[in-house]
């Protein structure tokens, strides 16, 4: 009971926080706009200071347990004729983001590319507009999802979780996410929804859609009191945001289940501590998330059928060995075992021992284990 109380309190708090966040964003954008306005008024060339995102300025923050940007910034000035265009693009995007946030209308990366054309701000291709979006993220230190720009790819969620929509037209409407066995897409409406209630005590993030369906069929949600999330490979940022919110707002632990290979291990790592690509953003990581498997050591332990690693797999292992996050504990150990056995196993490999082997045997065992690390 006491636990529920805290949850509710947390929820209220986060709702207010969220509102503040939105307001903050709008005022931040306005502040930037006002500065440009003033500069022009004073006959000066407006400019943006953008945190430098080059490799040399990406450092690992041990305290935050994620990659962050260093203090280097670069100036984008309208005085420089070669930067004028991208300066205008950036300002336009701020203007556009402001509009989206006000109207709570979501758009995709591609939308942004096309929307620009209505304003005579031309992007050569989507690549260019995507870059400007990341620039704005860096300037604001806010992920693009906050200003309603979402990626195309979507992952899905299933389990006993009640949400309350905040997007226009659905405000106040609630939905329990266990009523549709195919799961619910994690899109803008999901990411921006209030998390109202859940009976779950655990979030299981799983790499593959096939296994996600199996888990729903096997009622893993009920058996293990869990919310199941399909990351669809590398987890999109909206999914990572949702994972973080489930952890922070609902107090749910997050475990991750991936293929038994170096890429799987890294999928887990990104959820836990972010990616270098998003080093300019905070609030996308779940530092307490746990990688449950499939470990390299599990391959032998559970006698899983394997396939040999390719050369690029092995190269990836060695690359990651240099990453500061892989310098100790489980992460280093498993990576070294992968290098040693030079073989990998997919989640489906458990099917050798029966379709429900993974949920009946492996999952309970690993869940039990995971409590201890």
């Amino acid at each position: 009971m006491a636990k529920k109380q805290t949850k509710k309190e947390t929820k209220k708090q986060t709702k207010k926080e969220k509102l503040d966040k939105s307001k903050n964003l709008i005022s931040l954008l306005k502040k930037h706009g006002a500065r440009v306005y003033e500069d022009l008024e004073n006959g000066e060339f407006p400019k943006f200071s953008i945190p430098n995102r080059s490799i040399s300025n990406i450092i690992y923050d041990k305290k935050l347990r994620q990659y962050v940007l260093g203090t280097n910034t670069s100036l984008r000035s309208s005085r420089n004729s070669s930067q004028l265009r991208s300066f205008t693009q950036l300002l336009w995007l701020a203007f556009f983001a402001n509009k989206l946030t006000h109207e709570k209308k979501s758009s995709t990366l591609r939308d942004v590319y096309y929307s620009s054309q209505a304003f005579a701000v031309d992007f050569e291709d989507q690549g260019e507009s995507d870059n400007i979006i990341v620039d704005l993220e860096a300037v604001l230190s806010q992920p693009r999802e906050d200003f309603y720009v979402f990626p195309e790819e979507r992952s899905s969620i299933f389990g006993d979780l009640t949400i309350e929509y905040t997007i226009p037209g659905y405000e106040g409407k609630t939905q329990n996410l266990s009523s549709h066995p195919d799961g619910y897409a994690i899109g803008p409406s999901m990411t921006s929804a209030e998390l109202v209630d859940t009976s779950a005590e655990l979030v299981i993030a799983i790499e593959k859609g096939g296994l996600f369906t199996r888990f729903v069929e096997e009622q893993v949600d009920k058996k293990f009191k869990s919310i199941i999330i399909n990351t669809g490979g590398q987890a999109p940022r909206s999914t990572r945001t949702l994972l973080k919110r489930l952890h922070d707002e609902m107090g749910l632990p997050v475990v991750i289940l991936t293929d038994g290979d170096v890429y799987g291990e890294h999928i887990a790592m990104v959820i836990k501590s972010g990616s270098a690509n998003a080093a300019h953003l905070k609030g996308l990581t779940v530092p307490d998330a746990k990688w449950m498997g499939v470990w390299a050591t599990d391959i032998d332990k559970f006698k899983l059928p394997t396939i040999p690693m390719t050369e690029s797999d092995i190269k990836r292992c060695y690359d990651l060995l240099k990453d500061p996050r892989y310098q100790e504990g489980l992460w280093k150990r498993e990576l070294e075992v992968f290098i040693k056995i030079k073989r990998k196993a997919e989640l489906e490999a458990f099917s050798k021992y029966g379709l429900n082997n993974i949920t009946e045997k492996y999952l309970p065992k690993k869940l039990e284990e995971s409590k201890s690390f």
Partner: protein
Amino acid sequence: MSSKEEFNQISPSEFFYRNRDLAGFSNPTRSLYTAVREFVENSLDACDHSGILPNIHMTIKAVDPEKPDPKQYILTVKDNGPGIPSKHVPLAFGTVLYGSKFGLKQARGMFGLGATMAILYGQITTNKSVKVKSNADGKTRFDFEMLLDIQKNKPVILKKQETPSSEKGLSVSICLDGDYSKAGTKIRDYVYQTSLITPYATISFDDPKGEKFNHKAIIRSMPPAPTIIAPHPYGIDVETIRRMLVDTHYQIPNVDDKMIEKVRKELGMSKKKFTYDEIMKKTEKKWKSLTRPVRVVISLMSFLEADFEKLQRIRIEDVDLRNNKLVYWDYSTSQTLVAEMDVESHFYKQLANTVQGESLTHFLSKRFQRVGPTAALEFCKFAKFKPETRVGNMTDHELVKLSDALQTYEGFRSPDPTCLAPLGDGPLEKGIERRFEPDFMAVVQRTASAYSGFPFVIEMGIAYGGKIETRGTTVYRFANRIPLLYDEGSDVVLKVVKDTDWNRYKVKNDSAPLIIVSHICSTRVPYKTVGKENVADRPEIEKELRLALQFLSRKLSGYMSKKGQAEMAKKRANLYSKYLPLVAQFCTELSGNKKEPNYKEMMKEETALTNSDGSLEEVKKNG
């Protein structure tokens, strides 16, 4: 000039057949083109040398237009030149090797051979006569219709007619086998390019297909006419010196009938037979009035004790001054004979002087341009020759030494270009400007230089952009105001252009609208072939071409970077005129302001362009 005698020994038709390939009459296509060139160039030369602004009209008409090429064409070239006096017309057009162009001055044609070649070619291929209309005095026009008697090398006049006319000039019309469908492009190019390098000439051309090309004169003044001068020491070679030594008044003359005739005439002993003593007696009286060659012949006669009859029977083989012996061949006995020479006799002095030749200083100052007595003395000091050295006595070794020294001595003044007729900066510039209408152009006339003693001047022009439609570097080559159209691959001008790294001059070589006009003026252009289509790569000429091109390229480079800067400024101005209003619009909405910020002043500053005259121009806002 010594080759003249050689030519005379074969019949002109034989000569023609032997040389028709070299002279450019190898096939109907080439022949038509060559004939056009020969007549047009003759007309231009005639006008140039008389200081008349040329107005040349050319027509080519098919005899039977229905026939396929190659077929008979009538080529007519009419000019407003000085005309040819009627008594010279038959010889000028009815004999091979009759011409006035023997001398060291710049002209398009060398010996006036080409036109007769064309007439001969026409007669051989069509058996039709040549029609010449000449008005030399501005009163009467003489119309001739002639054939060439190939065996006798004499004209056969078929018709002669006089008409009163005030219009001076010459018109020549021949009928010849030609192929206009193949030669047409070249002929049109030729006419066009000729008008480019002769901007003071009006050249019109009616082609067989009924098309009319009219290139009006662009300027009304002519470059100064060239004069005849001696060679320059700089760049002369051993062979040329040797030829100059031989080809002088100091040579032992050929004792032939003509020479004997001359001696008789000067002595006033033309008619009768005279004894040796009579001759010597008369000589004593007349010595002072005799010309040098005659004195030499009489000196020979004195040692041979020969009268005119004996003189006819012998040939002098050697004048051996060291042994005081005169060696000769006697035709009547068919043997070589030797006569002693009396060292004390004044005839000996005459001979010795002749054989030994002039002193070196005399030779240098008299036979070369830009060398005075002082310069000759200084040169001798430099070259370590005794000034009084007799040129006739010089050994091969010494000649090589002399030739080398002439190359390396820097004291000579640069060659006298008065014998050259470069177009000049102004006319060349005008020509390029009017014909190409480029955005940028520059011309340069290098100072005169010399190769093998022949002076030359390089003129060059460069044009870029504007109405130039060709892409890549187009080179127009001229030599002595003749366009060079064939055999361009091996030409020295193209070699120099090809060697240029255009990137250094901010020019994209393969796409740039670039035109180079190169004009080599020389008393003798070193053509690689008799066809006069490409210039050989003499190092002296190559160097001058290179310097000219470098000079122009640097100018072009200056223009290109200015143009680049202007383009950059314009680009910047366009950029600001496009984006600043957007920036203003977005920041106004983003900051929640009602009114746009006042950025007009900024806009004005950023979109102002500095014109070349220093004034400011505002770029039109686009959108």
